[in-house]
């Protein structure tokens, strides 16, 4: 165990790797600060930059981009009350009031500290539980894998809130898009429409950039005129008082624990972790009225929770090969592009990659802390820069990023299609995250299902009668039924209200 950790640090601590980690954190924060773009967009936009690097270095840089993106999102949400990422939405609740009271600097400082503490707790959990979960994963049959992935997809749709049916539509559309290309088992082409480029499947980056990047930019353009920051954030204003520090210890400890636990579960993810941590703080607080008016606990708890969760979300991604969130599925896609297939064998077959990655997570977190305290003034200036001058460049970078992935003009035209679709989906309340998750899991889901059915001789009863597979499938089914019943109930309630108070003639 210890020699592994040492091996990891030895891998990560070369000057080259440190430099790329730094570059990753810097660029990731830069993109995360831009409104509407979070860590997911940061990873997909910067993925092509890592192509020319060694796999380990590339992953270290990607890890840095990921953290940078998350932290950049928090900066935007505190200063503008405009969450750059969904998980930063909770930070807005108390972060923005603090900024309005002229304490933006303290809020940003506590955010950085809480992120670091949460991240560190998550990393320790990842080191401790990762290998044992991988050993567990070795014993899984194809049927178990199928059931586990299905559970992940169902959980992503039902746990996050929002319309279940829209979430399911996105998952199924994602799975369907995942079938485009050459069928692994038979070599037949599916949905390629005689395009040579589609034989390798739809480009993940083109799709992610379309539904997340382009559509976000389009909707931010019309809302960009009202944005303004009046606060000045200097390094001096970041110093918290002794009282502030005393108040943050407990929330950080509780937040990290909650986040570390929830992050490892499929579908729960960072957003739920942040909300749960915030709710817990309100519940145990003596004076509940302080929340929402700039309580420092309201920043420390969710920020440490979402960073711990972001860390432990790597447990299922790396050790079983099943990502729990859209961002993780982009990470998984990035790993595969670099020739590493995450799964139970990753730790034993590529120990330098696994432990190097973990060590670099920690270094990335540390860099984030060191980098962002002196650079906070720079990020504030990036935020104050008129959006007018930012979005054309962002669009240009999306184009060049997608193009340079496979020097493919075809992929750039896919961005047009996915951008239009993504914008329509966004306007009508569809979340693009399940789409990406379904797309990445689709091919694995199909392959495992086919193998499982072959082993069960085509008899679904045999598949379900295995205790592990059966119970996983049962949990998925229960979650779906519960969610659908809830949806019907709210629909009925809405109809009844319509009848009592008729709104126009419709």
């Amino acid at each position, binding site marked *: 165990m210890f020699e592994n950790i040492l091996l990891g640090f030895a891998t990560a601590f070369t000057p080259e790797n440190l430099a790329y980690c730094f570059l990753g954190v810097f660029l990731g924060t830069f993109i995360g600060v831009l409104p509407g773009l979070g860590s997911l967009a940061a990873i997909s936009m910067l993925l092509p930059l890592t192509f020319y690097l060694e796999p380990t270095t590339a992953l270290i840089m990607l890890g840095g981009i990921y953290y940078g993106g998350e932290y950049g999102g928090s900066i935007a949400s505190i200063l503008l009350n405009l969450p750059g990422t969904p998980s930063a939405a909770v930070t807005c609740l108390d972060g923005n009031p603090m900024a309005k009271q002229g304490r933006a600097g303290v809020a940003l400082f506590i955010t950085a500290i809480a992120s670091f503490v949460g991240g560190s707790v998550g990393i320790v959990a990842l080191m401790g539980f990762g290998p044992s979960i991988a050993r567990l994963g070795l014993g899984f049959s194809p049927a178990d894998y199928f059931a586990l992935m299905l559970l992940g997809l169902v959980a992503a749709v039902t746990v996050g809130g929002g319309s279940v049916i829209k979430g399911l539509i996105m998952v199924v559309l994602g799975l369907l898009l995942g079938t485009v290309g050459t069928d692994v088992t038979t070599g037949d082409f599916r949905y390629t429409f005689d395009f040579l480029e589609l034989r390798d499947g739809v480009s993940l980056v083109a799709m992610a950039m379309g539904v997340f990047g382009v559509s976000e930019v389009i909707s931010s353009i019309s809302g960009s005129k009202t944005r303004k920051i009046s606060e000045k954030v200097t390094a001096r204003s970041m110093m918290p008082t002794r009282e502030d520090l005393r108040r943050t210890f407990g929330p950080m400890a509780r937040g990290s624990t909650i986040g570390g636990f929830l992050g490892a579960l499929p579908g729960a993810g960072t957003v739920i972790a942040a909300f749960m941590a915030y709710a817990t703080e309100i519940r145990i607080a003596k004076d509940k009225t302080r929340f929402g008016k700039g309580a420092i606990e309201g920043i420390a708890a969710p920020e440490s929770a979402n960073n711990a969760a972001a860390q432990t979300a790597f447990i299922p991604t790396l050790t079983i090969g099943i990502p729990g969130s859209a961002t993780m599925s982009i990470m998984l896609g990035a790993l595969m592009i670099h020739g590493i297939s995450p799964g139970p064998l990753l730790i034993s077959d590529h120990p330098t990659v696994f432990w190097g990655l973990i060590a670099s997570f920690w270094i990335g977190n540390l860099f984030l802390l060191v980098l962002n305290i002196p650079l906070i003034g720079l990020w504030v200036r990036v935020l104050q820069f008129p959006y007018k001058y930012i979005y054309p460049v962002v669009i240009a970078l999306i184009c060049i990023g997608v193009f340079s992935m496979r020097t493919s003009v075809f992929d750039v035209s896919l961005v047009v299609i996915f951008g239009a679709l993504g914008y329509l989906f966004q306007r009508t*309340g569809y979340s693009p995250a399940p789409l990406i998750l379904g797309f990445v899991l689709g091919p694995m889901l199909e392959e495992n299902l086919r193998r499982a059915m072959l082993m069960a001789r085509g008899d679904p009863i045999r598949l379900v009668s295995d205790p592990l597979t059966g119970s996983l499938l049962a949990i998925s089914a229960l979650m779906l039924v519960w969610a659908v019943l809830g949806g019907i109930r709210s*629909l009925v309630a809405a109809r009844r209200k319509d009848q009592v108070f008729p709104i126009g003639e419709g």
Partner: protein
Amino acid sequence: MKTISLRLVVAILLAGIGLTALVIASTYDIGSARRMGPGYFPVVLSAVLVLLAVAEGVSAFMKREPESTSSRIDWRPLLAILAAVAGFAVTIALFGLIPAFFVVIGLATLSEPRYGWKPAAILAIVTCIGAWLLFSQLLGMTLPLFRLGF
């Protein structure tokens, strides 16, 4: 019946995608439950997609919500940005990277009225220099800066 809501339009679009996928998938070899062919998974998925989209369409039709501002389409930025990306694709294939940057930024700035060509030109020049530094100099990628290939 005043206006067809955007939600219904999107549901119909999704049902259409599902139906098309189903028709195409039915030409593939379905196989059996034991030995699934390449068509099995797509057929099941597209059928489920059609069912879900129809259910969503029905619920959009029944539960009519007041049109909020968030469900309106801003045509100008939508078309300008999509045109910018498409323009980039065409220009980079024909003339190379630097003209493509000018096209993408020029078209993107049409999203807002009265943007002016001067800031657009400055942005394009800055982007070209930045991209050249980052991609060609720092990362050593080979990108076609200029070309005349038809």
